[in-house]
């Protein structure tokens, strides 16, 4: 059984390795200090279980999981995170609050052994760490890119994905429009259409179209259709 430990503190990784020694079936195939190494190691080893820290450099544990298509079962290890605790309860096999003892660790690992066949830990929309307000982590080919939200022009729905448009083109992310609408600052991003979420800073003009319809013209020259309710919401947010 392959295990990967992802934590930016070496000593924190050591303690998990030490505790794992009593489970001879578990084999630590990789140790990673951040989410970038983590995604690579997971793709390479296809582990049965990962131990994952939340607060890590550049991208946090949640953001790392979002980048993986079929994330393996996860046991979170963290010092303290109010928002995270709620999320773990919903989705993860277990979460270990640092510092944790051997007994608590064994309990979590046993829980994994019992549930490993049932669990598929795809992460739901309800997990929105505070960082989501400020950045979106995406993958382009093999590269992981952290996009600050102010660089995003708009979001467009695309089947099970969302296309995230920036000056450099678009990125795909497996999320819903509702997720971004909920997480992002509503004074900056407005859902102007069922399929579009618009960054107001990019807006230059609202133009009428045939019938009663309107469209938004962006700084980049792109035109985005506005739905009836989206037009009303946009006017409301802009205060006109």
């Amino acid at each position, binding site marked *: 059984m392959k295990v990967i430990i992802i934590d930016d*503190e070496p*000593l924190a990784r050591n303690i998990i390795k030490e505790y794992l020694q009593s489970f001879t079936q578990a084999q630590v195939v990789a140790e990673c200090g951040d989410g970038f190494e983590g995604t690579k190691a997971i793709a390479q080893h296809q582990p049965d279980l990962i131990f994952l820290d939340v607060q890590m450099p550049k991208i946090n544990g949640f953001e790392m999981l979002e980048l993986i298509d079929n994330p393996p079962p996860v046991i979170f290890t963290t010092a*303290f995170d109010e928002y995270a605790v709620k999320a773990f309860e919903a989705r993860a096999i277990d979460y270990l609050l640092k510092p944790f003892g051997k007994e608590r660790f064994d309990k979590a690992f046993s829980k994994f052994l019992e549930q490993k066949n049932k669990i598929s830990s795809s992460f739901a929309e309800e997990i929105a760490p505070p960082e989501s307000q400020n950045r979106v982590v995406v993958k382009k080919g093999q590269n992981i890119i952290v996009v600050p939200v102010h660089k995003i022009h708009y979001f467009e729905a695309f089947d099970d994905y969302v296309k995230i448009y920036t000056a450099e083109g678009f990125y795909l992310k497996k999320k819903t429009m509702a997720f971004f609408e909920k997480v992002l600052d509503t004074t900056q991003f407005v859902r102007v259409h069922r399929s579009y979420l618009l960054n107001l800073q990019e807006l230059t003009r609202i133009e009428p179209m045939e019938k009663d319809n309107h469209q938004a013209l962006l700084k980049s020259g792109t035109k985005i259709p506005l739905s009836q309710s989206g037009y009303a919401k946009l006017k409301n947010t802009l205060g006109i």
Partner: protein
Amino acid sequence: MVIGWWLLWATMQFAIMIYYGIGVRDALIDSLTTAIVLTLAGYIVVTIVKYFRHTPKNALTILVATVLLAVVCTWVLGRKINFLSTDEKYLNWANTTLLVRFVFVWLMLIIAGIDGWLFFYIKEHQQDELRLKENEQLARETELNSLRQQLQPHFLFNSLNSISALTLAQPEQARKMIEQLSDFLRGTVKKDGIQLVTLRDELHHLQLYLEIEKMRFGHRLQAQVQADEKIQQMKIPSLLLQPVLENAIKFGLYDTIGNVLISIEAREEHQDLVIEIKNPFDPETVLNKPGTGFGLNSVRRRLALLFYRNDLLTTNQVGNIFTTVIKIPQTLTDTSKSNL
């Protein structure tokens, strides 16, 4: 009230002059002119008192000023108003009482001066007290905040977790880390926020923090502290640098990948102690600009309250290096004892 006071004296002067047999017209003109001149001179004295700091040296200056003013007033009253009257008796009387008049004017001006002195002294004192109170409260808040910060999950719990990891494999290291953590926490609890300490003490405290963080993050975190012997004797409000270092480490560790070098450099510049803290950060994706955090704002505010200046903390960024520069004037005296 001031007018009532001068009217009272004018009336008395009038009565005395009548008693000496001076004509009603002359007595009235004289006493009213005296009252008006005295009011003006008194106003000048109070204004002088208002704009001088209330020290013994300035008290002497103001005393001299009252004498000069009294001379001028007496001269004006004794000489100039002579033109207003031709009554021999009155003119004689005015001449013989010149000295008395001078003493009277002078005493009046001194009374006005003392009055004003006391008024402004009390007012200033009250303001001082208010400022001191605010300062003390802020110090307490800082202490509480720094305590809260240390007792905050990420530092304390992660440190405990590291200790837990060390206990079996490296018990000696574990013990050392417990000691450092305890010393560090003790340092934050006992220190009074306005107390002045030497830079050496402050750096020692920071060193404990750095050692713990280095233990946690291993070789990823490196620190460089530079302050020569003479500089280390300079004074700094205690725990001032702690939030700045925390800010630097946070942005260094969580905003970049790879090794992080934090550097602290202290030097003297125009008799001020200048401390420069540098950390790497990512100007592209940084969530909040490193300078906008709560930590630096509280430091800026503390400096403003202590030195009445808001230019003592500055930040700048060159490439991917963020620098925080703090200037500490060496003008403060330790107020912690008198406050206790």
